[in-house]
Each structure stands twice: as C-alpha cells, then as structure tokens.
C-alpha cells in the first residue's frame, strides 16, 4: 500500500521551534492477526542537518502524531521529517518554519 499523507507544522517561538507532524501508518502490532507493520525510525532534519534520530516501536498508536521542540531555529528554516518502517517503506515531508 502506498503511504498515505503526512502533515507538518513548524512554528517559531522565542528561542525554539515547535514541530508537530502527523503520519498515516497502520502500525500493526504483534497482537493483531496481520503481518507486523510498524514504523521503526523517524528522522528529523533542520536545514539538512540531522537533529533527531528516533527509534520507535509497535507501542506507538496507528496514525501517529509527534510533537517536539527544537532549540533555536529561524523563520524559513527547512524542517524535514521522514520515517522508515519494518518493510522498508518510507515517506517524508518538508516544511519551512513559520
């Protein structure tokens, strides 16, 4: 199945950047009768530089939402979030800090 949409918002605060990102993913767990299918890693880049490398598991809900705060940042900074799941599927989204 082709990956569904993602949505991201990055807003500048005083001295920090708040990022909120929505992902479409089934996040199938071992408890279901379906084959395991879940996001394993999430990478966040700020102007091309990796700032977060997260390893997540089946414990995260379907269609996950992540909210996090990055130090610093400026208007127009490029924030890129990508995920990679256990089947090797991936998706990414890029937005400018507003």
């Amino acid at each position, binding site marked *: 199945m082709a990956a*569904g*949409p*993602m*949505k991201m918002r990055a807003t500048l605060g005083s001295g920090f950047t708040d990022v*909120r990102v*929505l*992902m*479409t993913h*089934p996040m199938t767990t071992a408890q279901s009768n*379906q084959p395991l299918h879940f996001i394993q890693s999430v990478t966040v880049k700020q102007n091309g530089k990796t700032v977060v490398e997260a390893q997540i598991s089946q*414990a995260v*809900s*379907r*269609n996950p*939402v992540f*909210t996090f705060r990055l130090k610093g940042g400026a208007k127009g900074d490029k924030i890129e979030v990508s995920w990679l799941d256990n089947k090797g599927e991936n998706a990414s989204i890029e937005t400018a800090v507003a």
Partner: protein
Amino acid sequence: MKRLLFGLSLIVPLAAPAQDAKKEIEKYQQMLGEGSPAELWELEGEALWKKAQGPQNVSFEKCDLGLGAGKVAGAYARLPRYFKDTDQVQDLESRLLTCMTTLQGRSLKDATARLFGNADRPSEMEYLVAYVVGQSRGHKMAAPVSHAKERASYELGKKMFFYRAGNWDFSCASCHGEPDKRIRMQELPMLSQPAGAQKAYTTWPAYRVSNSQLKTMQWRLNDCYRQMRFPEPEFASEATIALTHYLAVTAKGAPYNGPGTKR
C-alpha cells in the same frame, strides 16, 4: 496515545471528585485536538474531491452542496437543507451520493458499496466528509428551516428524538434529554438544548482514537440506533436526515469546529 492515557491515570487520584476527572479529560481532549489525525482524512478527502471518477469521468468540483456548484467553504454549516433538483431535504452524505450518481454518473450500487470503512481501509465517504466539513471550520451553524419541507424534516427529527421504541424502549432523549448524564466517564450532551447540541454537533464528524478512524454523522446515528437496539436505519434515509436536521438546527449559531477528535 496509550502513553498519554497512562499518564492521565496517574494524575487522577482514584477517589477524585468527578469534577477533577472531567477537567483532566477535557485537557486530554484538548491535547488530542491539537494534533488530530482527522487532518490526514481531510487531505485524502481533498485529493478524492478533485479526482475525476465514474462514467462521466468528472471530479466533485462541480458538486452543489447548497451554495452553488463547487462551493465548499461554509457549505456544511448550512446543511441539511432543501435541494430543488432532488426535491428533498438532504444532509452532506446524502448530497454526496447525489453528486456521485448524477454528476459522476455512477450507479447507486457503486456509490453505496462501502459507506462505512474500517481502520485498515477507510471509505471514500469518510474521506470526502472529512474534507467538506473541514471547509466549514469557523462558520456559524445555520441549517435553514424556511422551506416547507425543511420545517417538516425538522419536526420529524424532533419527533424521532423523543420517540421511544425498540427492545429497550429507548429514545435518543433517554440518554441525551437531561443535563449532566454520563456513561462511565463519557459525558452525554443534552442534545435537545442549544448548549449541548452546539458542543456535540460542531465536533462531529470526528476521528475516534479507539477506532483509529474518522466517523461520519450518518455512522454516529446508525451506531446510536444500534446501541438502542432499534432496527438498523438506512443510510441517508429521510429519517436519519431528519434527525440530523433537528440536531443541526438546535445547534444553530455556534461556530463549526470539526472534524473533531473523540476518545
């Protein structure tokens, strides 16, 4: 989401008064609303809205939701309403079916093949509904009751709301006709009064975290009837539209704030 719930259970002492628990639940709901997967349904819905489909190979972009062909902004806040071309009062779902069968030239069988989806495979209807209702955010609820058929629909809906029947002799009012009622920690809004109707109606359709899915108003009514042990109402029937109409009119004046997020 599980982690959030766990955190919540730590904050609320077991013997806390219901008021405190209610506050914590409101906080949880606010957190949910700030990052709601409903937005993903809106995105998918927008793509479907613009996708050419059916024998006529056209998109919904010429679909008339009551404000003129292709006008989506604010349309949901003014539904259900009377439509001249079909000579009946229609809600959003019923109107979408009309656009599928007339504009796109699809058969009713094709259009109604999959009205309720599931988490693994949501339905076209759910995506489209999410997109259209999202375009009414901030618009004040203003379902009309001026046409004779609109008045009749409203009155029928009101009658249905209070009509007791079924195995348990329930009516909508059994749960939603008195203030401050709840089932476990789920508050039951008093839908026969503006305050309750406004709070509920402006946050439906909604993404339900427990189902990982966006649910339509037609689904909400269908499931209420299931819970009341009534026979299953037909999708987009005169009866379900009338009941929706009654709720929409009672919610008049409040800014629409959906699609919402529910537990």
